[in-house]
């Protein structure tokens, strides 16, 4: 890379990448924190809050996110338009049914810095409910990020040999 001209080196250093995250069976908060780090550009050593060096992040399978605990029923998203009588409260399950990308969108929005650059960063976040991505976005992707949570295997996914090899803990 030392053979680059000055302008080519500058272009390489400040290039904007596209990241892909698969949100299947992942907690939306962890996905959102990974997104916010990359949208701000904090994963780069050249980070500065005033230079617009965030990258694009594409999240797929947002329909299949997995809240831990009872958050699907207990977590409440509230909104008020300002007019009397328009205070709405939706549980996470209702919100997800209405718009499968809203939970991750609101989580990322809350994790970004609360300044004017937040809206630009949100424009660089691309959310898709399933793993069908448009072609122009597929062409731009450069790296897939590892999932934050290891997905536990279901009992039906274990082979019979593994079930038999499991040690007998006690005789029932």
């Amino acid at each position, binding site marked *: 890379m030392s053979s680059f001209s000055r302008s080519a080196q500058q272009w*390489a*250093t400040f290039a904007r990448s596209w990241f892909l995250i698969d949100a299947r069976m992942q907690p939306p908060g962890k996905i959102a924190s990974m997104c916010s780090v990359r949208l701000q550009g904090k994963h*780069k050593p*050249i980070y500065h809050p005033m230079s617009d060096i965030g990258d694009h992040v594409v999240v797929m399978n947002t329909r299949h996110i997995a809240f831990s605990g009872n958050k699907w029923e207990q977590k409440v998203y509230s909104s008020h338009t300002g007019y009397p009588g328009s205070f709405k409260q939706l549980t996470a399950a209702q919100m997800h049914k209405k718009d499968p990308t809203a939970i991750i969108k609101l989580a990322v929005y809350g994790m970004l810095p609360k300044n004017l650059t937040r809206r630009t960063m949100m424009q660089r976040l691309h959310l898709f409910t399933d793993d069908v991505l448009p072609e122009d976005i597929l062409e731009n*992707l*450069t790296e*897939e990020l590892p999932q934050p949570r290891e997905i536990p295997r279901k009992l039906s996914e274990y082979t019979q040999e593994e079930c038999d090899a499991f040690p007998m803990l006690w005789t029932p």
Partner: protein
Amino acid sequence: MTARGTPSRFLQSVLHNGVGRYVCQLKRISLIFSKKGQGSLGVRDFIEEGVVDFAKNNPGTVVYISPQSCRIPKIVAEYLNGNVKEETVTNKTSQEIVELITKLSNQSGLDIIRIRKPFHTDSPSIQGQWHPFTNRPPSIDPVGPQAK
């Protein structure tokens, strides 16, 4: 005026002067004075005392003495990069003119404007400047859901 309204430049040296040999950047210095005006008194004293020593100490600089009928005596310094600097020396003492001439001979000919940074390097990065693929593990498979 503000820093934005006035010209500015980056720190530089003329052809890395001083890394190898040092070349005095003052090419020519012309003393324009009058033989009989009071303003040129300091210049005339300087010419009596100091100019020959100065010329001996700076063999690379050409010294021109031009007595003319002029109201204001001047020192015109020309540098190797083409810049010309004129200083009026009316009513200056010989000592002040000596200091002025040493200052002019120590300058390179670069413009005296705001220097943007007090440092400059031709090799800003030793290990290579970071780019997004510096520490990224290489992968052959295309990125996307089809890869699954």
